[in-house]
């Protein structure tokens, strides 16, 4: 979280904004759920984890069967340290929203993005 807050201050100074992509408005993404945004030819899944007051973003493509579906998956947490996760709607493989690691024991890795919220807008940091 601290990183996000730092970023917020920076964005106000608008030094970083070149790397930040305006994705949508906060109320475009359902509470405790996800939505998909188009970025150039890519698709990014954004998750509004209202319960934790956190936002996450990952690739929308599920690496299991190459389905553009993660934004439609259910989010939740796993384990004692409450790792935030998303379950793909197709075969319920789950992925950490923090690290993109597959939590169902397969060798998949999702790309994750940093999310910045400012003034009701959702930005994604593209590197």
């Amino acid at each position, binding site marked *: 979280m601290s990183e996000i807050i730092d970023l917020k201050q920076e964005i106000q100074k608008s030094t970083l904004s070149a790397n930040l992509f305006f994705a949508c408005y906060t109320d475009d993404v359902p509470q405790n759920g996800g939505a998909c945004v188009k970025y150039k030819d890519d698709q990014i899944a954004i998750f509004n984890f209202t*319960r934790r007051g956190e936002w996450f973003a990952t690739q929308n493509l599920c690496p299991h069967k190459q389905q*553009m579906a993660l934004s439609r998956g259910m989010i939740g*947490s796993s384990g004692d340290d409450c790792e935030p*996760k998303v379950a793909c709607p197709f075969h319920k493989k789950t992925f950490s929203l923090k690290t993109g690691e597959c939590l169902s024991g397969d060798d998949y890795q999702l790309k994750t993005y940093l999310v910045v919220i400012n003034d009701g807008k959702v930005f994604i940091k593209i590197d």
Partner: protein
Amino acid sequence: MAKKNVVIIGNGMVGHKFCEKLIAKTDEYQLVVFGEEPRIAYDRVHLSSYFDGKTIEDLSLSTIGWYQENNIQLHLGDAVTEINRTDKIVHTHSGKTQSYDYLILATGSAPFVPNIPGVEKDGVFVYRTIEDLDKMKAHASKCKTGAVLGGGLLGLEAGKALLDLGMQETHIVEFASRLMPRQIDDAGSKLLQGKLAQLNLQVHLNKNTSSIMGENEITGLAFADGSVLELDMLVISAGIRPRDEIAKLCGLEVSSRGGIMVNEFMQTSDESILAIGECALFKSMIYGLVAPGYEMADVAASLLCNIDKQFKGFDMSTKLKLIGVDVASFGDAFISEPDCTSIIFEDTHKGIYKRINISNDGKQLLGGILIGDADAYNMLLQTVNNKIILPPNPEDLILGSRGGAAAEGAGVMSLPDDALICSCEAVTKGAICGAVIEQDITTVDGMKKCTKAGTGCGGCVPMVKDLINGTLAENGKYIKNVLCEHFDYSRQELLDLIKMNKIKNYDQVLDTFGKGDGCETCKPAVASILAGLWNDLILKQDTIQDSNDRFLANIQKGGTYSVVPRIPGGEITPDKLIVIGQVAKEYNLYTKITGGQRIDLFGAHLSDLPIIWSKLIDAGFESGHAYGKSLRTVKSCVGSTWCRFGLHDSVSFAIEVEDRYKGLRSPHKLKGGVSGCIRECAEAQSKDFGIIATEKGWNLFVCGNGGSKPQHAQLIATDIDNATCIKYLDRFLMFYVRTADPLTRTATWLNKMDGGIAYLKNVIVNDSLGIAADLEEEMAFFVNTYTCEWKAAIENPEMRKRFNHFVNAPEEKDPTVKFEEMRTQIKAEAW
């Protein structure tokens, strides 16, 4: 100092297991693996499932990443062609050389192909590798008739594969006078033959094949007795040949009948070379099963770590995986009188044959055969292996106790601690019970992770479950099916809590009774409870619904959705049919008549769903809830309005019932059927509830199931009128909604119910719990508050917005969705 090299030849099941075992014990060695097949080790035991949907990935035992992480050098698609024992170097096909300190031969075996004239013809296959299967698949599309040469364990498996490949006719040709000659007796074989015939596998015994007919491509088999069998493809499954060729070449001792000779430490005649798995011959025996191979892998890995472990031979008991027929043999299956007493039970009607061989003093079980019903296999095998003293009436072992009901799984707890429960992973009873007590493991999944038990062939899973529950019970722990890691309650407990506390949303449920942030298991379960209790619109809490419920449609390949309007009782007017046709045409949807007497439209883009539904709703359709755990269809037959046998109007009644319960959220989906007479054209007895007309009224059946474990529904009331039938149904359905675990169909719910159908009937018909009035009242509330959720969704702009693929480009559809053409309609791109 440089690490010593261990070179493993063969990346099959046993070679891979050896790597796992060795690195778990030590990091002293550098491992180098050569595998001839182009892919990483996979599960050969479940090879056949490649034909019914499993992918190569599903079958893989590991990943390239695993080998990298553990610093194991893996060379795939490169066979070792020569072993130079003097310099301790191996040479490979691609020209690589590699020195070794220890060499492990895990080369497995190859199918034995008898020397019949014509075996080289096109259309003749063997069954061992994924490549073999791909070749069969490619050839099968143009074939109608297939056969397997060999009626052993693998032959039957191959026969099933031919069925899965869509052969219209499949034959099994066996030289011996019975099937599975090594596992079962004549009587068992006869029964099995009958069972296979039902699966459409025709068996020919005593057949000596003299030649394979055809020009370049096979056209048939000619037998020594002069008869001929015409066919388009043949799979040879006549036994295995250990792959000892490179061992032989370098002068290791091999048997004239095949197999690299090893001692109890798996050493060959050269101390630094070990052989394990199907290529190894121990005491004149090749062990053609995976469990003994894994044990050998462990023995070999132990030797390299100076751990004293010996291979002591292995039990060859087996249970066939053929879907539809249970076949098992264990211990000494063939010993016969006067060396023992055999108890045989045969039910030709149900297709069950069971034989147990008991020592003459009546104290010990020596072995046996089970066909048609092998539920007792695990326990019987344990009884043999652990020399457990038999009860006074040993026939109970196969007939079940016919006195008072015996506690489920009671027998398992009486096993000794060193009883081997999972033979694939060598996990004992002591280890499983220990994990329950010391590490608080309470689920099969947890046990798989913790001990690996049940991760091999999976045959021991029921026993593992009984052991977990048995241990919990012995330790005075209350066994309950908790929902998931976020809730320490069963579905029923949580339902009662939510109801008493009148909680209406998920977050509040989680805050009050749970922990963490929820997951894909508890969210839909709680959603179903809330819907069942308050009948609120499910889209109000869309993100706790399973994806299908969230978008009110089933997600399908490629990320498109299917649309299933309700067609109650299967009755539809020409006008409505026309609307379905028009909508399908306009939105380019694939249409199909479903098995539930209605029409499914596939291939809809997410963003088209609201407009498609608004057109359907305008024409008078409603949601068919094909996506929900809720009422699907009530199937009808045409009944007395047209049918000359019809006793009552089954269509009208089916429509009435379907309209009454439509939208009811339940633990699993619900299906019904109404037939106009005993001919039962609506198949009502295979449904969760079935209604069949009699001269005097209706008979009501409950808790039937089609699907993967079909079960007939059972009668709870006879000759009742329409109103009574509805009353009983109200009670039955509400009782199920209130008490079943998530994702439990009515049949499974009944199977787990103490007291079974007699108890259920008493609750529903005689109101033995005094809750009938409550149940009816709850159902009335539900019926009165029903609304079509699709109608509500399209009328609400906020909800409609949820159906766009891109939130930042609502007008654009998902560009990755692709269709192909098939029979002038569209089809999803294969994945």
